[in-house]
């Protein structure tokens, strides 16, 4: 019997009422979490007139997708008025290679750190692990200098490099913890048969790595897509990622404040990670939990 069953059996008499209260509380909290999303969505489908005359909790009376079109294609960000579409693609071009490279490197590192241990492997892992948690402010200035020297300032390639470097710790952590539980005997017998380093990885570990690959890809995708600090520090202007463009759009103080366009842009910026969450929430959670180390 679990704690929950007990709660029911011990409160046999007034059980009905306590159930009502519990459900009521849970639903109130659900509303608290849903309201900002509802407000964002409903505002994005309203006209500016309706926003001024109505209230934010009301549904749009005459839903229109004009604000979405403007946010995507013609809203002014800085000096250009081409909407956020360019920045959206910047983010895609940044996320895809950064996720792939950091995941591949993490898988190989995890493999070496569990199945090909060498003296000092624990220190190496410890150093990579601590690297996950540093405040990035402490590497910001040197990184800006190095990107400048390499000619990668304000480029997507530069951001890819930054995200690979600072994502390595987490991807290595994920794969290391996963491969740690993988039976070493299998690898030893493959070695007896003359299989080499890469053959063992490709034939034995990789085929059973699907779950951890999904977790890692989702975790990296969400983190890199949502990053703001690196984007704003190293890629201002035309090569900005989506989050930086959104902030520029919302905080610009010229002209009429178009709240509906702001909200449409915010939803567009949130959409990729939200979709990933809806499609693969289970794996998303696993990544978050593993990122919190305990496990």
């Amino acid at each position, binding site marked *: 019997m679990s704690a929950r069953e007990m709660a029911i059996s011990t409160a046999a008499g007034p059980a009905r009422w306590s159930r009502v209260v519990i459900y009521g509380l849970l639903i109130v909290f659900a509303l608290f979490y849903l309201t900002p999303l509802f407000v964002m969505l409903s505002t994005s489908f309203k006209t500016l007139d309706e926003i001024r005359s109505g209230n934010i909790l009301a549904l749009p009376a005459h839903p229109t997708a004009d604000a979405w079109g403007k946010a995507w294609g013609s809203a002014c960000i800085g000096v250009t008025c081409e909407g956020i579409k360019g920045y959206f693609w910047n983010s895609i071009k940044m996320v895809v290679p950064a996720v792939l490279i950091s995941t591949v490197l993490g898988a190989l590192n995890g493999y070496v750190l569990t199945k090909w241990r060498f003296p000092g492997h624990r220190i190496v892992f410890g150093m990579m692990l601590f690297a996950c948690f540093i405040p990035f402010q402490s590497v910001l200035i*040197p990184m800006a200098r190095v990107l400048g020297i390499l000619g990668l300032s304000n480029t997507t390639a530069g951001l890819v490099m930054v995200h690979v470097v600072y994502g390595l710790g987490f991807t290595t952590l994920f794969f290391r913890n996963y491969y740690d539980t993988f039976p070493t005997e299998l690898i030893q017998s493959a070695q007896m048969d003359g299989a080499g380093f890469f053959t063992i990885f490709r034939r034995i570990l990789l085929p059973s790595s699907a779950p951890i690959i999904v977790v890692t890809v989702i975790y990296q995708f969400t983190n890199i897509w949502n990053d703001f600090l690196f984007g704003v520090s190293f890629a201002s202007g035309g090569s900005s990622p989506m989050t930086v463009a959104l902030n520029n759009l919302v905080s610009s103080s010229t002209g009429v404040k178009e*709240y509906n366009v702001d909200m449409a842009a915010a939803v567009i910026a949130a959409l990729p990670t939200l979709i990933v969450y809806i499609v693969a929430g289970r794996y998303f959670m696993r990544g978050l939990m593993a990122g919190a180390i305990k496990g």
Partner: protein
Amino acid sequence: MSVSPAPSLGKRLQDWLPRIVLAPSLALVLVFVYGFIVWTAVLSMSTSRLLPVYRWAGFDAYERLFNQPNWYVALKNLAIFGSIYIVVCIAIGLFLAILLDQKIRIEGVLRPIYLYPMALSFVVTGTAWKWFLNPGMGFEHAVRVITGWDTFRFDWITRPDMAIYTVAIAGIWQASGFVMAMFLAGLRGIDSEMLKAATVDGASTFTIYRRIVIPLLRPAFLSAVIVLAHMAIKSYDLVIALTGGGPGNATELPSTFMYSYTFTRSQMAVGSASAMVMLMGIAAIMVPYLYSELKEKNR
């Protein structure tokens, strides 16, 4: 791995292959993390202003940092924001986890609703809450229109004395569902035999939770505090998107202080010094935690 009597070149290469594969990653981390931290430390002891200058100035920048009223505002705000954020996230998280653990039929619907904010970028969260908290057009206005309560006020975001609490509200909205999930995982891992014994002894549900279940959740509490403290110190995007550090400097945090002193106020040495202080704060929390986690695992 093994050492044979007269290894050929190919064999020796095979032996070194794992280390060769790991080497690039290790080199990247050594240079870009640890090397850069040393570099920032050097800058924090230099006379750098607009650009890096490598002239030794000792702890001059640290002295200037701790003579900045603005830095104290940032530290005070971090203390207010951080403590509210951690305490309320844990309170809500634990409360929701316990409620959800009462055999709730719609748990599968509710859990993702509590958790989705964690998938959003802080910039999106900040943008949404900035609009929601807008006094003239947001929640305040809506309450006045709907209830007719014309003097209802909720203008914290524009008030220097209250704005930091709006940052906490938005942060709690984003992270409390995640804390709930951590506690729920802890609750589901508790041995039910022990609880059964307690029920047989006639303990009430409340007593069981207070005396047995919550003490057993200690590891989850520890993880939650560590994760939340770490996120609080690093918080940057949320403040920028929600209040931009304002009104005035009312919501300045160490992270925003570092950025503006380094990149807009041309006080690079002071900015570097503030970054080093942040790093030390994080290290004080994370190093003992990671150390104990690693030790535990290798037992």
